[in-house]
């Protein structure tokens, strides 16, 4: 006979072990590298790693703490939006909008999204953005 007490213990155990496993999986997850030119709309919602040359950096008049970096590789362009929360963290880590110079290479990890027909890769933490010199 399964009593309420047993169900409570089982549910608690499954919840805690599940959360710990989830954390362990995410801690050890390495996203798949997809060359920029091969990212498709079908990749929407996936977390990937990609890289490209910075060809344009847009700033917003309404929000000075927002950046849209356009990356280019082999005839394709994608957007990398840096939202305010991440932008402020980057600033604290010594990375400002002037660090994203045209011609520099950027490696970015993030979720693929389709924003008004443009593929974007959205990073969420400082270490998702890696600037390369050439």
């Amino acid at each position, binding site marked *: 006979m399964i009593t309420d007490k047993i169900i409570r213990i089982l549910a608690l155990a499954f919840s805690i072990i599940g959360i710990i496993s989830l954390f362990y999986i995410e801690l050890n*997850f390495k996203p798949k590298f997809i060359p920029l030119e091969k990212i498709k709309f079908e990749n929407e919602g996936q977390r990937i790693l990609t890289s490209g040359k910075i060809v344009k950096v847009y700033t917003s008049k309404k929000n000075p703490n927002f950046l849209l970096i356009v990356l280019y590789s082999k005839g394709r362009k994608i957007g990398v939006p840096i939202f305010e*929360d991440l932008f402020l963290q980057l600033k604290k880590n010594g990375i400002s909008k002037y660090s994203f110079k045209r011609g520099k290479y950027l490696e970015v990890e993030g979720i693929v999204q389709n924003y008004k027909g443009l593929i974007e890769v959205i990073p969420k933490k400082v270490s998702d953005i890696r600037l390369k010199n050439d």
Partner: protein
Amino acid sequence: MIEFLICLIGSILGTLLGLIPGSHINNILPFLLSFSFFLNPLQLSLFIISISTSQIISSYIPSIFLGAPNEENALSILPGHKLLLKGNGISAIKIMITSSLLSTLFSFLLIAIFFNFFNFFYQISRNFVSILILLTILIMILIERKIKRILLSSFIFLISGIFGILALNFPLVNQNYILFPVLSGLFGISTLINSLNEKPKIPKQNFNIKIDFNKKLIKSSFIGSIFGILVGFLPAIGVSQAAIISQQILRIKDELNFLASLSSINVANEIFSLFAIYLINNPRSGASIAIQRILTNISLYHLFLFSSSILISLSISSLLSIKIAKRFVRIIEKIDYFKLNLIVLSYLLTSIFIFTGIYGLFLALISSSIGILAYKLGIKRSDCMGVLLIPSLLFFLKLNPIVYQILGI
């Protein structure tokens, strides 16, 4: 005339789509876009609008009678199930439909009044949301009054929140479908499993119900419409979070008014999402993104046509859904409810597997365990909404990058 016919077909298809547990227009949008071969952009947009609005109404049926929700009405399962077990399943459906229709009128009214101010609201509102969420969380926990229950409630809220931070960031499940296993587990699967364990019988359902057009219902629908519109332009806030916040603000304690508020938020959110393309140049739902892609220049003329399409499809779907609900009740009264629960549970698990794979099932296992734990501890299941409220709070406090960096995920 052809446009009216398109809305009619769209409404019927949308009503049928809503009856499939866990279904959503986003799942069939790529298929709908292929209709562009024989429908012009405006006709295709009206077709999508009819489907997306009418499916909201009929989706209340599987949610209330089967405990199988979609993302937007996951919270309706709990009060809906209680009403079903009291023989009031039909009143739950009727109240949701009535408030959806009221919300349609309120939403149009609010949008018309504040037409020129949405851009301004869009800019300033974000600063106050974190305070609103924080207050909601505090009220939800402190409402328990007794120390032991406050501690248990905080525990469920916290464990759900930690699960939310990890689950909503889980890289092995497509982010577009992630809420499906998470919310189905917390509110759908856990209810079904408890139901299987307790073997309840569905009592004879009461068919002769007249909806009392009282102040409470109108107030719930009106506030629900405001929250639905707010959801339309606030990032990281969804229908479920808004329902919980409005429930605390309005002090809604009875099931019927909670359902009224939830369905109003749902409808107002859908309507505003469609208008948001024009009002704030920011599509806020799968359907509105698709429409923005189809119709490049949206004008006031288009908004009037969208409004007509919404009114037609909501009316048709409401009429059809009441008829279907009555027939549905007659069928489930005859079927062994235990077997029905087993079938729905298998269906939900299969759908989760199809959309999100084995890792989605893994998320559903954890979320169901949390849902069952809350139930068995005798704590209100809305505390499981920590799964969305805590990540939303972190978002508005701009703490997400720091949390992810500290956790290393």
